[in-house]
């Protein structure tokens, strides 16, 4: 049986179509779900293994990226979402989705029933939105189920608020110590001024994962800017395959 991945949509998220495609290619039964339908019936979560928050501009990034979407999830999804994660569900947030997960306090998480906000994603150091492909290094020693064994490669980034910062140095230290840093921008490729070049982190379980780059926009070799040259790494699908494999183990 294929694990079911719910790809959230609506309220200004906009990278849901390609994310559904990526999960489909990775072997999941991928279904696009309007957030408002999930709010109306949070029990839908019980019939899924993976919940995915896509990229986009939920609520226009007004009041801070991911801020209002996080408020919505807290008010309408709070307990169901906690239960979903506690019972082994996998969560991925990409770009705006990552911003939502940090603002929900689900990343880096580990706060038990009262998640607190310790890291955030703020406006790029340049003050500008950036669209580019950058070199990404996947950490070998990480708790993250999604990135295990992935090869380094270029991935697209496109964001105005991708600068990863923590409340203080000790938060960063504990992320490193706990193996919660899943991927970094390669040295010299940091597009936004993120602390320690961090591009994605997970929670201590390794199942809840957020990242700024967009592996779902690297569906085929032809998406790559060096498509006409030999050196193109693997397409972005293996990251989703990792998630789907972990979800299948749970079935």
């Amino acid at each position, binding site marked *: 049986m294929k694990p079911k991945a719910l790809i959230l949509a609506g309220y200004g998220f906009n990278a849901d179509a390609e994310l559904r495609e990526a999960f489909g290619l990775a072997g999941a039964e991928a279904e696009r779900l309007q957030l408002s339908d999930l709010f109306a019936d949070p029990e839908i979560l019980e019939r899924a293994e993976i919940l995915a928050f896509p990229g986009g501009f939920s609520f226009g990034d007004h009041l*801070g990226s991911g801020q209002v979407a996080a408020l919505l999830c807290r008010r309408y999804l709070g307990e169901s979402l906690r239960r979903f994660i506690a019972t082994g569900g996998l969560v991925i947030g990409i770009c705006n989705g990552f911003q939502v997960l940090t603002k929900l306090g689900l990343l880096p998480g580990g706060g038990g029933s009262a998640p607190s906000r310790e890291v955030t994603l703020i406006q790029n150091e340049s003050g500008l939105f950036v669209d580019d492909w950058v070199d990404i290094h996947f950490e070998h020693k990480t708790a993250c189920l999604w990135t295990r064994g992935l090869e380094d490669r270029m991935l697209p980034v496109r964001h105005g608020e991708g600068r990863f910062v923590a409340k203080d140095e000790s938060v960063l230290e504990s992320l490193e110590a706990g193996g919660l840093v899943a991927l970094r921008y390669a040295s010299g490729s940091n597009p936004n001024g993120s602390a320690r070049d961090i591009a994605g982190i997970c929670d201590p379980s390794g199942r809840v994962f957020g990242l700024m780059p967009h592996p779902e926009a690297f569906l085929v070799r*032809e998406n790559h800017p060096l498509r006409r040259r030999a050196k193109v790494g693997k397409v972005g699908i293996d990251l989703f395959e990792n998630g789907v494999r972990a979800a299948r183990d749970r079935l």
Partner: protein
Amino acid sequence: MRIETCFLRRELDGRALGAAKRLAPFLGSAPLLDVVDVILTDLSLPSSLVEELFADPVVQYIASAAAPSLGAFAGWDWLVEIAYRPGVTDTLALTAREALSIAGLSVSGDSVVQTARLHLLRFPGLSREAVSRAFAPFWNPLIQTASFISAAEWAEGGRLPDLYPVVSLHESREPRLIDLAAMDDAALLRLSAERLLALSLSEMQAVCDYYVVAATAETRTAAGLPPAATDVEIEMIAQTWSEHCKHKIFNARIEYRDESGAQTIDSLFTTYIKATTDKLQPSRPDLLSVFTDNSGVFAFDESYAVCVKAETHNSPSALDPYGGAITGIVGVNRDILGTGMGAMPLFNTDVLCFAPPSTPDDQVPEGLLRPRELLAGVHRGIVDGGNQSGIPVAAGAFLFDESYMGKPLVFCGTGGIMPLRLRGSPSWEKRIEAGMAVVMVGGRIGKDGIHGATFSSLALDETSPSSAVQIGDPIIQKRMTDFLLEARDLGLYQGITDNGAGGLSSSLGEMAESSGGIRIDLDACPLKYPGLSPWEILVSESQERMSLSVLPEFLGELLDLARRRGVEATAIGEFTDSGFVELRSGGKTVGLLDLEFLHRGLPRMRLEAEWKPRPAPASATLVDRGDWTGTLLAVLAEPNVASKESLVRQYDHEVKGISVEKPFTGLERDAPSDGAVLKPLYSSWRGLCVTHGINPRLSVHDTYAMALAAVDEAYRAQIALGANPDSAVALDNFCWPDPVAAPDNPEGAFKLAQLVRACTGLREACLAYGLPLVSGKDSMKNDAFAGGRRISVQPTLLVTVVGTIDDCRKALSTDFLEPGDLIYILGETSGLLGASILERTIPGGRDGHAELGPCPAARPERHILLYRALAKAISGRALRSCHDLSDGGLAVALAESCLGGRLGARLRLDALPGMPNPAAGVSSAGAAATTAEATTAEAARPEALPRAACCLFAEDPGRFLVSVRPEDRERFERSMANLPAALIGEVTEEPGIRASLGGLRVLDADLASVERAYKTPIA
């Protein structure tokens, strides 16, 4: 209460750092600056909620009722707060209201939520004037207010407001009566001017005539209306008859005279545009809907249709660059959403024309925005508008010419996709029938954008209404788009169109033509604030709205889905077959217009056009520099050529995961592409190619050549990318100076002749290339009066071409791939340098630039032979790279291809096809047939022009620079047999660009200096 949010550490606030950098030139050095987001509300909010909603506790401090205002902190010298004027769309405040409702608060329509941006400036010793001057670029007085408070004033109790003024309107709900019959000609014209109707005397008389007809009086009496017109009716007629909506100039009867005689042109549109497509249509069964809908539709494959449209938003962008540009994007997106049963926007294009950003302030006429501020504002609008909509920017361009000082040109285009069939019916057709409900979806109606359609048909002056400025909200529209596509797939509506210029009056007036009538209840329309009069509701151009026709049995389900998706949808009337537009308010009829009169009562314009050939330019002189390396670097640094990567990287071109060929290409992703290739369907390799052609510089010589060049450039770029040469469709967007002769526009007849000639060129090139025009738009009043003079844009035609490539894995790019590859030039070089970029780098003459003689002209009927052969060679994978030659000619194309591959090139320029061999005196063209014409071109070439400059910098259309693997040499040359193609050199490992002519080195540039020159900042 005021809620203020600020970063705890200044170095984390990218916005503040950026703002400090912008202030530096005014202050002498960068100040210390904090930027504070302010929410103002009359609601009383608990502090826990304030913190949850309005701050990021990881990095921000929040001041509200519970914590001291940021103003109370010492250390600043000036406070500068920027807020919106009443009634201006405040997208942040709308989200804040929604967030408060989500949090469980009841936020009634009367409660106030506003936003402002506060700057805490630390820079001692500044006067109020100095601060005000430095902050001038930060706000636009048309839509915003700014308050300045010094530290001393604060100490004396000066404070910022707890709330800013709100809209307070008391317009009469009772329509005003306008007795046209009692007015003489002068009074009619006065009425047109005072109400901004933008109608001519003969048009006003036609309106007048409608009301004196007995039949009109009878129907009015029966409906309880007086014989005199109501303001609601007059406004609806003016909107419907506006140049923007009815294209009066393109449909006019024109008496045209030139050196060969006189002729009558019965509608430019019919004669040149529609006729072109009509002629091509039999061989293009893929054309599904042309000219009739909001965009042109063609079949992409067996299952999907693609539609394309481009618009301009010049006048609003001249007043409010940011809001104007956003509105331009979300507006053209709605054209796609309003095509057929509704298509999904797939990509955007943006072509922007400004005066050079380096223009000194003292050369900017009073009352006009500085070009660099216009550029910055429009660019920021495109960034926010496109990115937030989740629609990738596929392609675009930035052009700079002094003539855009008065009005910038902001071309926004969108392509969309939809299944060919929806629930068994053709997706490109809609049903609007009597008995169906009229439903308005999306944003609410306010005073914003009133008279936008007529305003864009007027020249700018000091009295231009600020109400013509609207600010779009891409997020509201994105949510509406998601909802509509969902409703479409569920079959919950039967017809759709967008509310653009003219608001409901235009969209519903158009829809009513299908059913044969409509009744609109203006009181049912949801408003942003109370107090609008009925005519304002009808013509308001408040953004993010679509109109639907809905069968009554689906209405409930549609409205319910809208509610669940958080989208406003309201039934505001019914389609009828009465033959009338019936407008109701306050329980009675306030307007009744015969549809036939409304849509066909407009008198045809009659215009005169007189062409005067340009006198031969003064003999050109250009010193032979021997070595043209420095010239190449100057041409690369010219703003039209120089890299726009820093601007384009701020556009999202990857969202949707469909990008193949991107705006910048090559090893380091910094060499320009010829256009975009997209892979719209995840399950298919079939691709879409998107390209542009625009060359307003040629208009100085002849708009005929300009139009030929624009079509050629766009079509040729398709070939360069690898598109199927028989699959492309084109959009034409004309932006012209006022071509209607009048006492204050003595050159009107000439400008109209320029339009006629451009149309001639457009038709000729499209027919030669088999390129049907599927949609288009014209903007005819791109003039400004400032500093006591008229500033008119160069006549500008943008041609957007969309084609398909059967397998996007075969799509080429412009960068050289490997050392040893052979370099060919394809197409003929005349060597003419008129209107070239080289010309712009030499001081003297027009707008401070030299003139280098006549300009080259495209010859589409000849080029097409080369294009077809090349397309076949590309499809057979015989090429390694392909780059069209455009601005800066061969030298620039070569530099770009080298930069892309981080490789060099060695070239011999002795035998460029078309250029005569100086020794033998005959052409070295590959095709013998070209000799005679090439020699003619040579005769026109002023002898004073050095041959090397002509080879390197001439901008003849019809040419490519390609590279070929040595082992493919034979088969490539075979494919080019009898065509103008010449092997001119090879790609080298060593990163230097070298060229020789007659045994002498004429170019020797190292790649590093080429890169430096190309990346010269444009502003």
